Structures are given as structure tokens and as C-alpha cells.
């Protein structure tokens, strides 16, 4: 895997750390729910899923 593509994953990790912490975290502090999942949990789970998808796509395309 080329350094450039490895660095995509490093950036993903840094972004995840930023989004999953204060102050972004406070944005998710909503009332309400989606399909019975409270807004806060729903936001976290969605970001979680996005992280999985992005790393899957990057690795699928560039891992050699």
C-alpha cells in the first residue's frame, strides 16, 4: 500500500477523533429519536458505520 493511501486512513482516524469528541459531541445532544434510537446514540452509531465504510473502501481499492 502506497504511503499516500495509508495516510488517508490516518486522516480518517484523526477526523473520527475530532468528530467523536467535544464540541462536536454536544451537537448530537438532541432530544428525539430515530427508529426509537435516541438522537445521540444514533449519531454516534452512524459515524461509527461511516468509519467502517470509509476504511473498507480505502483498503479495498488500494491495499496491495
Amino acid at each position, binding site marked *: 500500500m502506497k504511503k499516500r493511501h495509508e495516510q488517508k486512513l*490516518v486522516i480518517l482516524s484523526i477526523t473520527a477523533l475530532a468528530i467523536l469528541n467535544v464540541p462536536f459531541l454536544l451537537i448530537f445532544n438532541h432530544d428525539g*429519536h430515530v427508529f426509537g434510537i435516541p438522537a445521540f446514540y444514533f449519531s454516534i452509531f452512524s459515524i461509527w458505520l461511516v*468509519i467502517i465504510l470509509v476504511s473498507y473502501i480505502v483498503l479495498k481499492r488500494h491495499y496491495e
Partner: protein
Amino acid sequence: MSNYVLFIIIVTYLAALFFIAYVAEKNSKSKWVNNSVVYTLSLAVYCTAWTYYGSIGIAANSGVNFLPIYLGPVIAAPLWIVLLRKIVRISKQHKISSIADFISLRYGNHRFLGALVTIVCLLAIVPYISLQLKAVSETFQILSDDTSYVATSVYDDSTFYIALLLAVFATFFGTQTTDASEKHKGIVMSVAFESILKLVFFLFVGIYVTYVLFDGTEDIYTKMSVAENFESLTAINGFEGGFNWLYTIMLSFMAIFLLPRQFQVSVVENVREKHIKNAIWMFPLYLLLFNIFVIFIAWAGNLTIGNTAQAEYYALLLPLQNGNTFLSVLVFLGGFSAVISMVVVATLALSTMVSNNLVIPYGFLDYFIKSHPERNAKYIKNIRRISIFLIIISAYSFYVNFSFELSLYSIGLMAFVIISQLAPSFFIGLFWNRGSSNATIIGIVAGIAVVFYTLILPFSLHALNGSDDLVQYGLAGIEALKPHALFGIDFLSPPAHAFFWSLLVNLFCYMTFSVIKKGNYRERNYAEMYVDSKNYTDLQDGALVWKGEAYVADIKKVLVKFLGDTRTERALNLFFRKYDLPLDTQMADARLINFSEKLLTGSIGSASAKILIASVVKEDEVSLVEVLKILEESKETIARNKLLREKSNELTKLTNQLKDANEELIEKDKQKDEFLDTVAHELKTPITGIRATTELLMDDDDDMPLEIKTQFLKNMLQDSDRLSRLIHNILDFEKLSKGRTQLNIKKYNIKNTIQKTIDSLRQIADKKQVEIINSNQSDLKAEYDEDRIVQVLTNLISNAIKFCDVKKGKIIVDYKFDLGYLEVSIKDNGKGVPKQDLPFIFDKFYQSKNQNIQKPEGSGLGLAICKQIVENHNGNIWVKNNEKSGATFGFKLPFK
């Protein structure tokens, strides 16, 4: 359910695990055992009873704080492509078998550092194991019908026997070889299997609770949203909560690398580096699946059971209270799986550390040197076996004495805080070559001291005599020294608070002391190897700088003690062959020292290996500057070698090109000579003829009959015609082949050009009664030099006429458009071209063999000129024999 039935279920389950591990061990090469899915599932040893039961307790009582434990690994996973790969590479190269080995090797094979790391790990993990035992014991009690039953002594406590069974399991599959860096495929496979079970059973109970006991997620949400503390369960508590959240994420981020069991499965048991690829996305997915139903189980428990003290076991209690005993047994088995895998892997990792970094280097080395290889192997294995039992037994006694009142969550976090003290030396050491062993030791000791004061001491005091005075009033009544609120920072949870202070102190000491006093040369040598691991992998055994006197025989003696005769012999032979040394080499060099240390590392740990080898060699002190210089040089040598190889490849290529060019020139030269010879010969023939006839006519005494005279004069005329034609052709050919002729290219219709040519040849054809058929009437316009193409056509058609039989001859001229080319073909039914002539027919002065017998009719340049003309048009010309009789000549011209 009766105790006995439950115990039988447990034993059956353990037997099944034994079987799986046994089969995996037998088929250790199979692709069912070595794949990225098994690797990822083995990483899921991260999810212990704490995940299985503890998360629900947190979600039910205090809200979102169970999430950061999993978010840390999720954030860490993408970094594995850089971090974990580097760690795995280094560990494989140095045959590292535990995190203690990894850290102590980075800081120059430091014996005390290895021991210190081991102690830190024991401090963190033994209570953690006891926590797992506690979970087993409590769930066992919940599930067995005799709830009033309390174990009065160790011997009738089922947890004790379960702990012993686990120890047997770990011993059986964990200590089969003395080399701890060897893979334990059986254990890994059973862990992977358990990881599936715990996830599936947890999802079962989640679905059961949400969709069977309740009417889906929205139902639980609406019923729960009327609770008074609902707000605090679904949201984060402002910026203060944000800090706790951040510190917990950092803790779990470090834990996924540093926990001995994680290091064991992710690094030591890593079969192939590429397995990391899939783990990077599969592991976060596993964790996500594990967390989705947590809040619903927790809230369903809150709604129907509502007993906060038992919140951790809602997953078990919910199906049990609704009469679904089967599901609750499954849940119990899932939790039990989580416990088994954690306990087995953790004790295995700890026992390796205890034997290789604590017991052997501090006591058994002298003994080993005197003993026999077989006995040594037995001793090493026994040390590990005893360690496994001791660790589990001490975990059990910790559980009996301490952990009754503490939740799974708090002890788990305490373990994380303690283990995080290894973080500065571990992570920074990978990228910063100046970090030194003394600074690491100071940092870890200082960090542990802070953790002791802020977390362990209050916990122990509370557990021992129930007093909270220290927490309430601080040490000697000083406010600023309150263990849970040092210097007035009182908004953090105790673990986050302890983490913050201890890591700050640890990091500060590590960095500061590293720069104040530089480490010795050996430390720096290993530091360079770790930091710049990519370059040093190329150097291999040459990466260690070592100077001194050593005999191969002495080193061999040490190796034999641990590897036995045959393995030592084989390893040394391999080594000598690899470096092209004679098999009877007497003096050992740095590479052999490094190689032998690595050989021993797996069995007795890196520190002991270094001590043992050092005891039989005489090492000279090398200055730090020298070490760096030598390393730099060897790195440069490698780089230079690479450069040289590239240069030499380039040169070879150039030489080949030159050779080809030279050959071409020689060939051209030869052709030129031949050409001149042939030209001279061809010119000479008619001149000789003219000269001979002239002589005859001059010598003639007027008695020659007039008609003979006329015949002679006719011959002379013919020969001089031939001569001038020849000279014209030669000049023409030379011009064409040198590219000196300008083609007069315009747009013409090929139909007209062909017609024109045929018309001019009609006379000769009629004379020989040869039929020329030109039936194509289509107009095809192409760009060419008409005069030249007429020349080509004339030549080809007159050739055809020449070789056709009188009266029977038939020549077909045709043309067509083909893939951007104009293709013209002249087909005759003459005698065809002899097979051996086909490749040469377009060469200059090439005359067919049987034609040479007679007087040559052509100049021998006609076809060569045709070829030149066509090629000057960027076309090509060819000939082939027809199937029946005759030959077809053809040429192609590009349209533009």
C-alpha cells in the same frame, strides 16, 4: 436450574472448546485456521464480561459512558495500517513474545525494564481477571435456582473449579513449545469461536428483549422517555462530561495496543501481516454489532426489573423472569465465553512475561547454563505452567477478598489506567529515537505512584475498612491532595482523573529525562532499529553494532543448552550459508551475536538472551557516536548497493543497444561491399560483350558477311541499351534508398493509374498472347506519386507477363480498400516463385537460381526499386504463391 445441571453444561462446553482447540492445533496449516476472519475474531477478546454485562449496567444507571470504551479502538483501527504493521514487523523480526519483551528490547534489552513492565501488567490484569471470575460466579448464582446458596469455603465454590479448568486449558494449549513466540493456533481458534458465540447470543437476547418482550425499539423508547433521569441517560453531561469522555476514549485507544492479551492476539499470534487489512474494518463492525442493543436491554431491564444494583445482569435476568430458561442459559454461555477467552489469553500472555522477563532473567540463568537441553526445556515450560496457575489463583483470591462491592466497569477502567502507563514508552518509542531506558523507568514508576495514590489507595482503603476519609479530606487534611480531585480538579471521574495526572507525570518524566541524559550505545542501536524499522529490515542481522571477541564454539555451547544439538546445528548452518561464510568459521561477528540472541529470545526472553550471550563473549565498549556512524554507514552501503545495481542494469541495457547498433553497421557495410561487387559485375557483362564484338569487327578483313556484321552491331546496341538501363536503375535505386527523391504526392484515382499502366504494356502482352484482366471499376482516390506507382505497376505486371506461359497466360489486376490502406494485387498463373526465393525476392540484384543459368533478363533491381518506392510511401509490398499456380504480388499504400 440445578447447580449440577449447570455445572455439567459448563464442563461440556469446555470439552467442546478443548476439542476445537485440539483440532485447530492439528490442522495448524489449514486455511480455516489462518485467515483474516479468525484473526479479527481473536482480536474480539477485547470484549470481556465487562462488555457483555458491564455495558448494560452503565447504560441503565449512568448513560452514555460505556461507548468510549469501544470508540477508542474504532478510532485506533484505521491507524493499524501504520502502527500495528510496524509493531508486527519488528516483533516478527526479533521473535518478540510479549509486550514486556517489546518495550525492554526497544530500550536496549533492559532487564529491569522488562521486569517492571511485567509487574505493571500483573498489577493491572490480575484484578481484571478476578473481575471475570466474579462475573462467572454471579451469573452462575443467578441461574442456579438455589439463590440463597453462598460458598462457605473455597472447596465448595464452583468458581474455584472453573478457574482451575481454565488454567488447565491455558496450560495445555499455551505451553506446548518452549519458544513463546511460536503461534498458539488452538487457543486463537477457540477464542475466535467464542467471539462468534458471545456476539450471536448477545444479539439473540437483544432481539428477544426488544421484539418479543417489547414492541420494538420505539416502544421501549416511548415507555422509557417518561423516566425522570431519562435526559441524563441519552445525552452527554456538558463539557465536563466531554472531558471524561475524551479521557476514556484515550484510555481505550491505548488499551487496544497495550493490554497483554491484545498484544498477544494482534501481534504475537499474527500469522500474516495482510490479515490486518480486513481486521481494520471488520473489528469496528464487530464492536458496533455488540453495542447496538445495549441501551434497549438496559432500558427494558429498568422498565421491568428496575433494580439498579442488578443492572449489570439484566441480559440474564430478563429472559429468566419471563420463563425463558433456554435463552438465559445461552446468555450465560455467551458471557462465559467472553470470560474464558479473556482469562486464557491474558494468563497465557502474563505467564510468558513472568517467565521470560521476571523469573528466568532474575534467577534461573546460571542453573540453565549448567543443565541439559531437555531438562532446560522442561524447566522453562514448567515455569510457565506454574505461572499460569499462580496468576489464576491470585486472581481468584483477589476476587474472594476484594471485588464484592465493585462493579465490572470500575475495575476494568482501573486496569486500563494502570496499563496506560506503558503508553509513552511504547508509542513515542516507536517514533522517537532519543527515548532512553532510565527515563522510561522513571516515567512508569512515577506514573504508577500517581495511579496508586489517586485510584488504588482509595479503592483499597474502602475495600479493607470501608473508610472514605482520604477521599473526603485529602492526605493529612490538605484539600489540594484529595485523591479524586488533585489540586482542585474535581469534575473528572476518578479513573479519568487518575489517568490525566498519571499520564501527565509519566510523559513529562519520560521526555525530560530522555533529553537530560542520553542513553548508552546499545539502547540507541535498538532505538534506531525500531524507529527506522523499514531500513533495518533490509540490514537484518547486520543492524546490531557489536565489537569484541567471540568464538563460535562458545556461542554454540549456549545455544545447544536451549535448542538442543540438531536445531542449533541447523540454525547455524542456515546462518553461515545465508552470509556466505565457511562452515568452520572460528570467530563470531556482530551478525552471529544478533542472530543467536534472536534465537534465544523466544524461549527465555530478550533480556536473558542478551545476558547469556554476553556471558560467553568479550564485548568492547563502543561509543554512541561510533554506533551511529556505523549504522549510518551500513544504511548508506545498502542504499549505495541499490544505486549500483540500478546503474549496472542501465549500463547493461546501453551495452546491448550498442551491440545491436554495431551489428547493424557491420551488416550495412557488408551489404555495401556486396552491392559494389554486384554493380561492378553487372556493368562488366554488357561492356565485355560490346568490347568483344568491337574487337571482332575491327579484326575483320572485310570477308565477314554483311548480315553477321549487322547482327554484331545489333548486339552492341542491345548491350549498350542494357548498360544505360542498368546505370539508370542503379542511380534511381540509390536515390530512393537514400531518401533523396522527392515524391510528388497528389490525389489520384487508382483506377486511372492502373488503366494507364496496362495500356502501355498492352503491346508486350499481346505479343505473348497473355490476357490482362482488370475488371474493377470502382473509383478509389488515394494520395501517391503517380509516376512512381506506374513504375511499380509496370514492373510487377511486366514481371508477371515474363513468367507467364505463351497463350495460356492470365493476369488479374485488382484493388480494394482495406483498413485505411489501398491494397493493389497482381495475380498471375505463371510458374510461381520458388519457395527458397520468397524471402529474398525483393533484395537488390537477387536473381533466381534457375534464371542464372540463362542470360539474366532483368537488371536485378526492379523489385528492389518497387520495394523502395512503396516503402517511401509508408506502405508495404509482399509476394505469395497461389494455391494452384502462379504468384500474387501486392502492395498497400496508406490513404493519406
